[in-house]
């Protein structure tokens, strides 16, 4: 399994988290995931992902970080 491309967007002002995530998705290779770290759930991003053929899953941690794993939908 390939290591995910990590986008740690905590502490980045908008719109950098969205821009960096979309840029990272362009670099994805088959079977790889983007791991986005953020202090909120990026709801506007979800619609973009769905329309462009990506699936995502979310996990939250005790320090308030959301871990969003994004991969090509099969």
């Amino acid at each position, binding site marked *: 399994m390939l290591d995910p491309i990590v986008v740690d967007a*905590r*502490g*980045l*002002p*908008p*719109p950098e988290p*969205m*821009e960096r995530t*979309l*840029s990272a*998705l*362009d670099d994805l290779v088959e079977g790889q995931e983007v791991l986005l770290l953020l*202090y*909120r*759930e990026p*709801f*506007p991003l*979800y*619609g*973009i992902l769905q*329309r*462009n053929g990506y699936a995502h899953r979310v996990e*939250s941690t*005790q*320090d*308030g*970080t959301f871990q969003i794993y994004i991969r090509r939908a099969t």
Partner: protein
Amino acid sequence: MQSTFEFEQAPPISVPYRFFLGGPPFAVAAGLLLAWMGPAALVSRWNPQLLALVHLLTIGFMLQIMAGALLQVLPVAAGASVPRSLWLAVVSQAGLVCGAVLLVTGFALGSALNFKLAIPVLGASVAVYVLFCGFALARTKAQGGTVLALRIAVPSLVPTVVFGGLLASVFGWGRQLPLMELLGAHVAWAFLGWGLILVMGVSYLVVPMFQLTPAYRPRLATALPLLSLLFLVGWTVLDLLDRAPALRMLLALMEAGVVTAFAVATLVLQRQRRRKQDDVTLRFWRTGMIALLAVVALALADLFTTDPVIQETLEILLGVLLIVGVFMSLINGMLYKIVPFLNWLHLQRVVSPVPNMKRMLDEKAMSGQFRMHLASLVCVALAVFLPWLAIPAGLLLAGSALWLEWNLAGAVLLFRRLARGPGVSLATVRPVSR
């Protein structure tokens, strides 16, 4: 992949902007009314003109802008888009503006007819607003502190308006109702239910997002609005039934603890922010949180005071700090982040490259307006003790609100110019200079 954002969920930019531009003129009117009332303004909280002034600020400025901001925040914070948002914005804003004017003139002129008209107008516009936003909040699958807080805050507008409507019916129809108990419930649900829980929910989103701090702890973020609701319901029921004074006191103290925890948590997070330089929003937000701690201290002093003269002074000062110090500061600071961001977001569709967000509003103009807001806060608070200060305090309050409107209007005009003008050189875009 395309790097432009999708807009299916976001409302048209005119939805939040109509509320944002509609709010400050009410604060200008409030400032002018304070100056016109002069030294007698802040002597008694039962002065009808002071009640008019309070509702210019709470409905005209605060509620209007908060209602508009929420329509914008819901899709971002909760993935919940409000159906028919433009229609809702037009109808609810018209109702809020007309209702505020009727209520304020009802107080100022002692007109029973205006009260009779204000009740259904405000009641209907708030009901429609709560229904549509409630629908969006009920459908979303989002979890967490922000959504929970919004799900409590939005329905809290209902008891706020019901208790307020009952109070207004005393003036409109001369009904015999327990004024003090209804007033306590109206004020508690307005500020602690709707106002402060909304601020909590929005803070969980925007403080880390715009002020680049760590996140609020998830357990704290869910506990604060839940406990607030619990204490508020318990206190209201016991107060209306005039039962269990010791338990009521305990609930009030615990609510003071919740509010303190929220303010302290926010201030601590701000100290932990990644970029140490201050910006104007941070200064507004910090002012709001320090004022919130002062409000708690005053409320505690009020709880343990039996002298009615001291109580009256404490409660007027508390009102000043809560409205001007907490809510006007937070709203003002928030607008200075939201408006440049919305300009940038919506311009993406029409121009490329989009100018930097920092070019949307002039930093010096925002800082100047912050200083004027701070001066007005200090001056209005001091006017509680030095009545002659009411005139300069009112003029400062009006001046600060006018400056805010001017700054916001500049950003909106810049958006229109960029959105419409294909010949505009984006490299030369600057905030509208004054």
